[in-house]
C-alpha cells in the first residue's frame, strides 16, 4: 500500500497540478459568466429602444394622467397667503378676518396674473357655484384695498356660507382624495368620515353599473352566438372550416369605426334592420334603434363576436371527435357526454373568450359615442367628455384611474388563471 502512495517529492507537483486545474476551471467559468453577462446586456440593449419609447409615449402619459386624480396643486398654488392664514383654523365656524384679508389679497394677485378663471374653475369642481361668486368678488376687489377689500369680501354672502371655507381649506391640500371619491359618488363629511353624495348629485356609480351591464350583455350574447359556430367550425372538414373561419375573420379585420359606421346605416329608422323586423313580423312599426341601448348592444355584439369565438375555437380544435364517440360507445347519452366530456375541456377557452370580450367592452368609446343615446354613454365617453367639454382633467383622471383598476384587475386574473398565451387570436 505504502509503495503505491505518492512519495513526498511528488506531492507538491500534484498539488500544483490540482490548483492549476482549479484555476483553469475557475477562469473558464468566469469567462462563461462574462460571456453570458455580455449576451444578457446585448439582449437588454436590443430591447431598450422600444422599452424607452413605450415608457415615453405610453407609460409616462398614463402615470401623469393618473397622478392628476390625486394631485391637484391649482388651489394651493393660487392661494399661498390664504393657506398660511388658515393654518391655525380649526375648521369650525368662520375663520378670522386675517383669512378673509389673505383671500382678498390672493384673489387680487390671481386677477393680476390672469389665473383667476382657472382658480374659479378648480374651486367650482369642489364647491358648486363657486365660479360665478369668485369672479364676481374679483371684480368687486379691483378698486379696493385694505379695509375696503375686507368689506368687499364680507359683502358677498357666499364667503360667509358654512360650506365655503372647509372647501377652500381642503383645496389648499395639493394631495387630494376628493376626485377619486367623487368618481365613486362618495365624499368626506364634516366629521371626517366618508359618505355617499346626495342622490341628485350621484352620477358615476350608475355609469359604472351601466358599463358593466352592457359589457355583461354583450359577453353573454357573443357566447350564445359564438359557441355553436365554433363547435361547427371545429367539426366540419378542413376546406369548409377554412371558409367559415374566413367569414369570422373578415369582420374581425375590419376596423371598429367602419363596423360602427355600417351599423349606423343599418339601424336607421328606414334601415335594413327595421325592414327585416317588419318583414318577419316581429315589429309592427319601425323602431328607434339608433341612439338606443339595444342598438348599442347589437353593434357591440357584432364587433366582439370574433374575440369571443376565436379562443373557444382554438380549444375545440384540439379535442378529437373520437372522444365523444368513445363516450357514446360507453353508453353516455349525447347530453351527458357533452356535459361531462366536452364542456370541461372547452371551459378554459370559453372563459378566455368571455373575459377578453368583457374586458374590451369596459373600454368601449367609439360605438357608444356614435350609436348610443345620451343615457347609453359608457365610462370612456364620460372621460372624453370631461377632457373635451368640461375641461376638468382631475375628474377625467379619477374616472380613468378607476376604469384602469377594474381593467387591469380583470386582466391580471386572466393572465394568472388562463395564461397570456390565450390572448393570441388565430
Amino acid at each position, binding site marked *: 500500500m505504502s509503495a503505491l502512495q505518492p512519495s513526498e517529492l511528488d506531492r507538491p507537483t500534484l498539488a500544483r497540478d490540482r490548483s492549476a486545474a482549479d484555476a483553469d476551471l475557475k477562469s473558464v467559468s468566469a469567462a462563461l459568466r462574462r460571456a453570458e453577462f455580455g449576451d444578457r446586456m446585448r439582449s437588454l440593449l436590443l430591447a431598450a429602444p422600444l422599452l424607452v419609447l413605450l415608457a415615453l409615449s405610453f407609460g409616462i402619459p398614463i402615470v401623469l394622467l393618473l397622478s392628476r386624480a390625486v394631485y391637484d396643486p391649482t388651489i394651493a398654488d393660487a392661494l399661498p397667503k390664504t393657506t398660511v392664514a388658515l393654518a391655525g383654523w380649526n375648521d369650525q365656524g368662520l375663520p378670522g378676518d386675517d383669512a378673509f384679508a389673505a383671500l382678498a389679497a390672493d384673489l387680487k394677485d390671481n386677477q393680476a396674473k390672469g389665473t383667476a378663471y382657472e382658480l374659479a374653475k378648480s374651486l367650482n369642481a369642489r364647491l358648486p357655484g363657486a365660479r360665478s361668486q369668485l369672479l364676481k368678488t374679483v371684480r368687486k376687489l379691483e378698486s379696493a384695498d385694505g379695509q375696503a377689500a375686507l368689506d368687499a369680501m364680507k359683502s358677498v354672502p357666499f364667503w360667509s356660507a358654512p360650506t365655503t371655507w372647509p372647501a377652500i381649506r381642503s383645496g389648499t391640500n395639493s394631495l387630494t382624495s376628493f376626485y377619486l371619491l367623487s368618481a365613486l359618488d362618495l365624499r368626506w363629511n364634516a366629521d371626517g368620515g366618508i359618505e355617499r353624495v346626495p342622490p341628485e348629485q350621484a352620477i358615476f356609480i350608475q355609469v359604472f353599473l351601466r358599463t358593466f351591464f352592457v359589457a355583461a350583455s354583450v359577453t353573454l350574447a357573443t357566447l350564445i352566438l359564438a359557441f355553436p359556430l365554433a363547435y361547427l367550425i371545429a367539426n366540419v372538414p378542413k376546406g369548409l372550416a377554412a371558409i367559415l373561419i374566413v367569414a369570422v375573420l373578415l369582420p374581425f379585420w375590419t376596423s371598429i369605426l367602419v363596423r360602427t359606421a355600417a351599423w349606423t346605416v343599418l339601424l336607421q329608422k328606414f334601415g335594413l334592420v327595421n325592414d327585416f323586423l317588419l318583414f318577419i313580423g316581429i315589429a309592427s312599426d319601425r323602431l328607434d334603434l339608433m341612439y338606443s341601448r339595444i342598438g348599442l348592444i347589437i353593434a357591440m355584439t357584432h364587433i366582439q363576436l370574433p374575440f369571443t369565438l376565436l379562443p373557444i375555437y382554438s380549444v375545440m380544435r384540439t379535442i378529437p371527435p373520437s372522444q365523444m364517440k368513445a363516450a357514446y360507445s360507453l353508453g353516455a347519452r349525447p347530453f351527458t357526454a357533452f356535459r361531462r366530456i366536452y364542456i370541461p375541456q372547452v371551459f378554459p377557452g370559453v372563459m378566455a373568450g368571455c373575459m377578453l370580450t368583457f374586458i374590451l367592452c369596459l373600454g368601449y368609446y367609439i360605438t357608444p*359615442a356614435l350609436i348610443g343615446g345620451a343615457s347609453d354613454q359608457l365610462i*370612456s365617453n364620460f372621460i372624453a367628455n370631461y377632457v373635451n367639454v368640461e375641461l376638468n382633467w382631475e375628474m377625467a383622471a379619477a374616472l380613468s384611474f378607476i376604469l384602469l383598476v377594474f*381593467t387591469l384587475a380583470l386582466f391580471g386574473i386572466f393572465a394568472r388563471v388562463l395564461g397570456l398565451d390565450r390572448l393570441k387570436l388565430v
Partner: protein
Amino acid sequence: MLLSPYPTTSERIRITLLWIWCGLVILFLLVPILIPVPLSFNSGAFFIFPLEGISTRWYEVVLGTQRWQSAIGNSLIVAFGTTVIATTLGTLTAIALSDEKFPGRRIIMPLLLSPLIVPVVITAVGSYLFYARVGLASTYAGIILAHTALASPFVVVTVGASLTGFDRNLMRAAAISGARPLTSFFRVMLPLILPGVLSGAAFAFVTSFDEVVVVQFLASAGQRTMPLEMFIGLREKLSPAITAAATLMMGLSILLLLVANLLARRGRKPSA
C-alpha cells in the same frame, strides 16, 4: 364528422338546428360589413334600398375633394411612420426576448402587451396631457409616437412567433465562419424571419391606419386622418361618401391583414 354513421332522428334534428343557427350567425357577421359596399355605389343621396342607380360619385367625393384627400395623405404619413418605427424596434425587442436568458422576460412581456389592454381613451387622454407639455400635441411626431405604442405589441408577437422556429445555432455557425453580428443578422436571421417581420409590419400599418381615438385627441384640424374624418362625418350628418370611405378602408384592412396572416402562417411553419 358531425353526424355519427347511423344517426338517430333526434341527432339529425340537433345537427340541422346547429346548421341553421350557425347560418344565421354567419349572416349576422357578414351582412353588416358587406352592406356599405353596394350603398357606396348608389347614385342617390340616401341609404335606402333599392338603389337608385349605380355610380361612382361618392368615390369621386372621397378621392377628389381636398378635405378627404388631405385626410388620406395624413393617414398614410402617420401609418408609414408608425410602421417603420414599430417594425424596427419591435423586431429588435422580439429578438432580445427570444433569448432564454433575457432578464425579466415574464415581467416585460405583459408590459409590452399592456397598450392593447389599457382602454384606448385613457391612452389618448394621457398622451394629450403629456404631449401638450412637451410640445408634441398637434404634431405628426406625437401621433406617430402614440400609434407606435399601440402597434408595436403586434410586431413583437408576430416576430416572436417566427423566431420560435429559428435555430440559434445558425447564428453561431455564421459567427464561427467569421461573420460579424450585423452581417449574420442581415444574411442569416432576417431572411428566415422575414415573413414574421412583414406580417408584423402589416399589422402595425393597419393598427395605425384604422386608429381614431388617439388621433381625435392629438390631431389639429390640419392633421385629420381618414378615420377621424369618418368619425366627424358620422357625428355631423350621414353622407353616402362615408360608405365609400368605409368600403375603401375595409378593403385595405382586409387585404393587408390577409397578407399578414398568410405570411405569419408561413413564418411559423418550421416550428410546427
